[in-house]
């Protein structure tokens, strides 16, 4: 194989003949405008070339597409290959999808988080497919001696319609792999997509419904030991002494080892180590304050009043505006901690060998797991391999590498392959959580009901900045001040699906409902006026696309028949997060004296929809998640220890409690902007504002069932 472009290898599209025959295409994603280049297969095998993802076309016509990003239920393992297959004009029934292992030489951003995978890789994936298609067409043109302009492709075949000739991709793969690849490759006109925008089923369906081993917890290896870890029962405690004599004598127990504040019981089966863990005698001592939820409530109020605030955004003269206001509206909103509760609890396999480390398991950040394991063992990161399994949910929890770190420690200490398993109790009580937060909003209205001033202060726990200062209504209010105060808590916290906005959106959109009411305006009309203002005379920088906000707002109003349904109490909410725009209308009906959330109508602008089936479910699932946690999710602490330890104490939404979710996508042809999270943030307010209409009681704290409006009925 000859090399056409030898310079700057890192940013080039690569292609090589696979050693097993057929076409092997790698594409580097570090630069969407990358130039193509031929690489040699030896270099490929040696891992010397910086690829980002690749596909192979076998002589048997099977196209294998590697999906580098962790699959946690967001559908990436189906959507990514669809994008490649679209530009390639592949026959989808002959496409095989493979989860790639961690390989930072080949891929970048092998992460699941922030709804960022598709926006990041859209251009790159298309280019990979289009380049392979180009080569196949060139190969056919040579073989048939006809100009490429007369050649078309369809479903895995190259066709010369006027002569009736056709060849499959598999038949052309070898020849195609010998052709120099172009510097520029033409992408399809988006209107001619045939696969993107269709409903394509989850590529792992068959394995899921037949119970095949797919998930981290399903990973077993001959000679593997099981470990359960006793962590301090409260945040703020540290280990003082361990008496593991009794535990070590229990059947099946191989060893008990200690590292940091953790005591690991290692043995031959999950159940045996679980029983042995129960007889450990451990003494702890206080390292930090043992905080309770009652303390948090007090701290929040104190810091709202006189905490040292960091200014996040300031426009105009807020004090003036509030002084001149005809009306001032103030309200505070608070939410509790939440566990992530992916249904597959944390677990990880590690084998620390003489020559390196093998890691296998569910992680949203495989590279982080690798680097941590390298640090612990002293091996260079290249000596640590990470196999990414399918994951039983993530919701941000698997962005932390704590459980992979544990597995590495234990394997290193007992010198054996080990799978660390968390019970549900471990998962719920071992951290990390969506942090609790409290917001105070203030709005100043002039005589005509115009919002002339807006203030927001957020008090967060370990969250740095609990506001999103550039989100709406910033840009739409002349005088605005957004600041935040931080409280450092020993309770471990981390990103939780739609970090910050999972609660901020609810608080802000509920508050704006209060302001609209005080201004005597329809909630949708009120927002539309603000959008107009942000467009015509913006206050400072506007970092969201106002037209897209308007479009989803109008679509939700239209599809919900806003304000025109008898006996139905409607509540509105609209939010921009993770690059996408979602408006929702919640519909509450009073049944036997009880307000019930019956429907949520969602208008979604995430740009081009890749997989209709997957996207529809992402939105429904996001709404169910948002409504479920707003209604029921409550995690409280007493002296540093969680009060809820399993699903009997922590309530997750069930089928009997969900609203219908009616989803409408905006068709605007804009490049895809992510969908794993954006449907969740607006859901809480759509529900709360609808409940308000039905009960005339504001829901200013989550979970709603603990609020006056619900307590008085049930």
């Amino acid at each position, binding site marked *: 194989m000859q090399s056409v472009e030898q310079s700057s290898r890192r940013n080039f599209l690569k292609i090589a003949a696979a050693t097993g025959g057929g076409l092997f295409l790698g594409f580097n994603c570090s630069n969407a405008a990358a130039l193509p280049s031929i690489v040699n297969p030896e270099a490929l095998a040696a891992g010397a070339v910086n690829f980002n993802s690749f596909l192979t076309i076998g002589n048997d016509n099977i196209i294998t597409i590697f999906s580098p990003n962790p699959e946690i239920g967001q559908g990436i393992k189906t959507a990514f290959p669809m994008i490649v297959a679209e530009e390639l004009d592949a026959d989808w029934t002959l496409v095989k999808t493979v989860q790639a292992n961690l390989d930072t030489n080949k891929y970048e951003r092998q992460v699941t988080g922030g709804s960022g995978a598709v926006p990041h890789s859209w251009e790159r994936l298309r280019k990979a497919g289009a380049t392979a298609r180009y080569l196949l067409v060139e190969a056919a043109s040579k073989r048939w001696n006809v100009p490429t302009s007369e050649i078309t492709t369809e479903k895995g075949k190259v066709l010369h319609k006027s002569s009736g000739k056709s060849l499959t991709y598999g038949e052309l793969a070898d020849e195609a792999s010998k052709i120099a690849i172009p510097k520029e490759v033409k992408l399809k006109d988006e209107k001619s997509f045939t696969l993107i925008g269709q409903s394509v089923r989850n590529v792992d369906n068959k394995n899921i419904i037949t119970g095949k081993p797919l998930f981290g917890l399903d990973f077993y290896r001959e000679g593997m030991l099981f470990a359960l870890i006793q962590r301090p029962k409260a945040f703020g405690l540290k280990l003082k002494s361990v008496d593991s004599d009794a535990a070590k004598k229990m059947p099946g127990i191989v060893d008990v080892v200690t590292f940091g504040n953790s005591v690991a019981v290692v043995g031959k089966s999950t*159940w045996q180590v679980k029983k042995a863990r129960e007889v450990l005698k451990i003494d702890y001592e206080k390292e930090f304050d043992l905080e309770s939820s009652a303390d948090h409530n007090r701290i929040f109020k104190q810091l709202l009043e006189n905490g040292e605030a960091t200014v996040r955004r300031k426009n105009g003269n807020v004090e003036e505006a509030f002084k001149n206001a005809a009306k001032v509206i103030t309200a505070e909103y608070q939410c509790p901690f939440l566990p992530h509760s992916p249904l597959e609890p944390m677990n990880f396999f590690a084998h620390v060998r003489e020559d390196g480390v093998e890691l296998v398991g569910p992680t949203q950040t495989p590279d982080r797991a690798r680097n941590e394991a390298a640090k612990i063992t002293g091996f260079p990161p290249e000596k640590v391999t990470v196999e990414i399994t399918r994951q039983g949910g993530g919701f941000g929890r698997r962005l932390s590498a704590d459980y992979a770190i544990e597995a590495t420690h234990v394997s290193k200490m007992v010198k054996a392959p080990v799978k660390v398993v968390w019970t549900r109790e471990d998962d719920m009580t071992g951290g990390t959580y969506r942090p609790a937060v409290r917001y105070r909003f203030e709005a100043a209205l002039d005589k005509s009901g115009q919002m002339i001033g807006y203030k927001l202060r957020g008090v967060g726990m370990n969250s740095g900045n609990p506001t999103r200062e550039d989100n709406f209504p910033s840009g739409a209010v002349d005088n605005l001040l957004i600041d935040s105060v931080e409280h450092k808590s020993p309770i471990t916290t981390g990103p939780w699906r739609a970090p910050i906005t999972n609660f901020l959106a609810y608080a802000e959109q509920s508050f704006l409902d209060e302001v609209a009411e005080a201004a005597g305006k329809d909630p949708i009309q009120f927002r539309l006026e603000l959008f107009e203002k942000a467009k015509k005379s913006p206050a400072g920088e506007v970092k969201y696309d106002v037209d897209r906000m308007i479009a989803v707002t109008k679509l939700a109003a239209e599809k919900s028949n806003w304000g025109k349904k008898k006996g139905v109490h409607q509540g509105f909410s609209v939010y921009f997060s993770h690059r996408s725009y979602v408006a929702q209308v919640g519909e509450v009906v009073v049944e036997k004296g009880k307000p019930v959330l019956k429907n949520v109508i969602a208008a979604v602008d995430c740009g081009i929809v890749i997989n209709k089936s997957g996207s529809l479910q992402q939105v429904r699932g996001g709404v169910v998640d948002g409504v479920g946690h707003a209604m029921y999710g409550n995690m409280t602490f007493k002296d540093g220890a969680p009060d809820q330890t399993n699903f009997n104490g922590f309530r997750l939404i069930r089928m009997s409690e969900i609203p219908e979710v009616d989803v409408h996508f905006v068709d605007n042809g804009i490049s895809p902007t992510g969908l794993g999270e954006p449907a969740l943030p607006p859901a809480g307010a759509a529900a709360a504002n609808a409940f308000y209409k039905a009960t005339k009681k504001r829901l200013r704290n989550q979970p709603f069932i603990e609020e006056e409006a619900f307590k008085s009925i049930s």
Partner: protein
Amino acid sequence: MALLKLQINNRSYEADVDGDTPLLWVLRDNLGLVGTKYGCGIAQCGACTVHVDGEPVRSCALPISAVGKAKVTTIEGLSEKGDHPVQKAWEEVDVAQCGYCQAGQIMTAAAFLKKNPKPTDAQIVETMSGNLCRCGTYHRIKEAVKSAASKTK
């Protein structure tokens, strides 16, 4: 520890375990039948649902000593080719997000439809509300159960 003989998916298995070990962990750790999932261990989520003599049972809360001669069916044995009407419906409706809860959902639905081949919507919701899906695929679970019911009539 005792050597126990078990009837699972029409095959005989032996496991050398303590009598209080839940069936779930025997299936997973000793017999390599990992299709049955662990979600809570306290009969709250339904991820571990199997059939014991045709009845849906939470295997996390069933000690192996209580299984005796009963016939156990797990997701691996629900059908030979993965073509039980409920499995087919799950595929056609494209139910799964992460997929972790779905074996338990399918086993619950299959046992339910066997007894109630023509369920009302309310009966479906009542039964399936025993199984948690953290991804929130409930709309499609409901749709798939309905679709499977219409096909088994």
